[in-house]
């Protein structure tokens, strides 16, 4: 099992940088035969109260091509029901919205946050990585990712190198990834700030599909501190460009006096005036990630911090703490706390006061009411119970995730009586088995 874990770990970028740190001693004891397959599987259930439910099985197989050469294949299936909030505001009367296809509608009750509960999607993803030594101290990983869902396809390739120096105590890492995504929204790509029409009417659409490209570079160093501790420090740059708008997200237009959405559609009197969002066509993110691990008499302390800033005006901080507490020879329990905080994007716009909304098609203006671009804190609390034996290993984790943010500024009238930024909480159950 030790070798199994280590082999799969080494396929990740981070671990490629740490291969020598952990490898020299263990490999001698747990050499994996050339030609062997090492298989592991995982299953995740994710459930948000009244919103998204997801089940995600994963199977991964690693083939030992040569002593230090592996091929890793991973297949992920992601089945999703329900959507996140549409961006529209709740109000004190029922609201009827047209589904993205334009052929049907759904109604949300007075006081409820608008979201399309009929939303369903299935995503299949395939990842491959080939790791091989280039020289005694240099390791290369080549990887590819392919994923497909009903309205979204993605293809990317990456490469990274890990260079061991200082007697294997310092490992330098550099990598790059390039990808292209194709978005084919149900019902077509909305016109920026086009007004949603009633079901079966002609919707404001601008073609059927679009693309975006992604380019990432990462550099990092891993350093052994002493016999029991090590740290890693990474810097990464991520550039995306193209269609970054969420085609299903909308923004309410509210009355300047009452704070209620306008209802002006003659054919569907319960359809509020909502316009489709528009995001910038590029985004540049910088991240700094630091991790420190310490072995404490059989237990393991694992801490990390990430700072992310981007040119959308978002700054985020993520702190992650785990403590793997050894119970007997093979069992362990690992409590986990994660704290996340982000500021809002510059163009986060929870609603338009009537008269301030851009005219349809004005893609020079950027606005989105997607709560995920707002200011909020995220908290994760959980624990994992697991066992590592000589033959296999398993773990079961149960986690609770809470997103909480303040009500937006500038509310008035009915908006002040509604909860525009409700908490979102989720329960996650994760099972991992290493055969």
């Amino acid at each position, binding site marked *: 099992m*030790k070798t199994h*874990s*280590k082999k799969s*770990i080494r*396929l*990740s*970028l981070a*671990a490629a940088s740490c291969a020598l*740190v*952990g490898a020299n001693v*263990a490999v001698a004891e747990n050499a994996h035969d050339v030609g062997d397959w090492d298989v592991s599987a*995982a299953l*995740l259930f*994710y459930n948000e109260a009244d919103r998204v439910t997801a089940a*995600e099985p994963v199977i991964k197989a690693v083939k030992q091509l040569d002593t230090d050469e592996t091929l890793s294949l*991973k297949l992920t299936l992601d089945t999703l029901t329900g959507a*996140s909030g549409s961006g529209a505001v709740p109000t004190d009367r029922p609201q009827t919205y047209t589904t993205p296809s334009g052929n049907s509608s759904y109604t949300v009750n007075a006081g409820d946050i608008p979201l399309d509960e009929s939303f369903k*999607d299935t*995503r299949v*993803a395939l990842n491959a990585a080939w790791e091989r030594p280039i020289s005694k101290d240099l390791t290369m990983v080549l990887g590819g990712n392919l994923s497909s869902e009903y309205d979204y396809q*993605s293809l*990317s390739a*990456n490469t990274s190198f890990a260079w061991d120096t*200082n*007697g294997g*105590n*310092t490992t330098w890492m550099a990598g790059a*990834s390039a990808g292209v*995504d194709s978005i084919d929204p149900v019902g077509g790509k909305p016109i920026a700030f086009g007004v949603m029409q009633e079901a079966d009417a002609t919707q404001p659409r601008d073609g059927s599909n679009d693309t975006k490209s992604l380019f*990432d570079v*990462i550099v990092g160093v891993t*350093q*052994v*501190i*002493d*016999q029991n501790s*090590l740290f*890693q*420090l*990474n*810097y990464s740059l*991520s550039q*995306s460009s193209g269609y970054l708008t*969420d085609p299903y997200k909308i923004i309410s237009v509210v009355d300047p006096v009452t704070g209620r959405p306008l209802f002006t559609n003659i054919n569907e009197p319960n359809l509020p005036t909502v316009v489709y969002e528009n995001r910038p066509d590029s985004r540049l993110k910088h*991240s*700094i990630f630091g991790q420190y691990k310490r072995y404490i008499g059989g237990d*393991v302390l694992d801490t*990390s911090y*990430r700072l992310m800033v981007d040119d959308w005006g*978002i700054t985020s901080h*993520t702190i992650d703490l785990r403590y*793997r507490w050894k119970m007997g020879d093979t069992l362990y329990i690992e409590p986990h706390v994660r704290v*996340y905080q*982000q500021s809002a*994007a510059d163009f986060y716009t929870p609603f338009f006061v009537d008269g301030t909304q851009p005219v349809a098609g004005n893609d020079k203006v950027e606005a989105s009411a997607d709560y995920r*671009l707002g200011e909020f804190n*995220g908290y994760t609390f959980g624990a*994992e119970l697991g066992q590592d034996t000589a033959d296999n290993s398993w773990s079961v984790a149960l986690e609770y995730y809470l997103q909480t943010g303040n009500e937006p500024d500038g509310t008035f009238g009915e908006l002040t009586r509604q909860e525009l930024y409700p908490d979102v909480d989720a329960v*996650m159950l*994760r099972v991992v088995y290493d055969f």
Partner: protein
Amino acid sequence: MKKLVFILLAGLSLGACSNMGVEPWERQNLAKPEMALDSSPLRSSLDDHIYFSKEASSGGRSFGGGGCGCN
């Protein structure tokens, strides 16, 4: 500017790395699978996908991800 100072400080502090480290025969604890920086890549990829779809940040440990509409 603050970023630049941070990067410089990080670089300087890494210069001290040559004084850190252990001999190969002192690595029995560091070599344990649970001491790998990413001791459960399957767990990490599942978690990263959840947070990628729920938050406006991703990556850091590895590449930023993508390949998901995540509506």
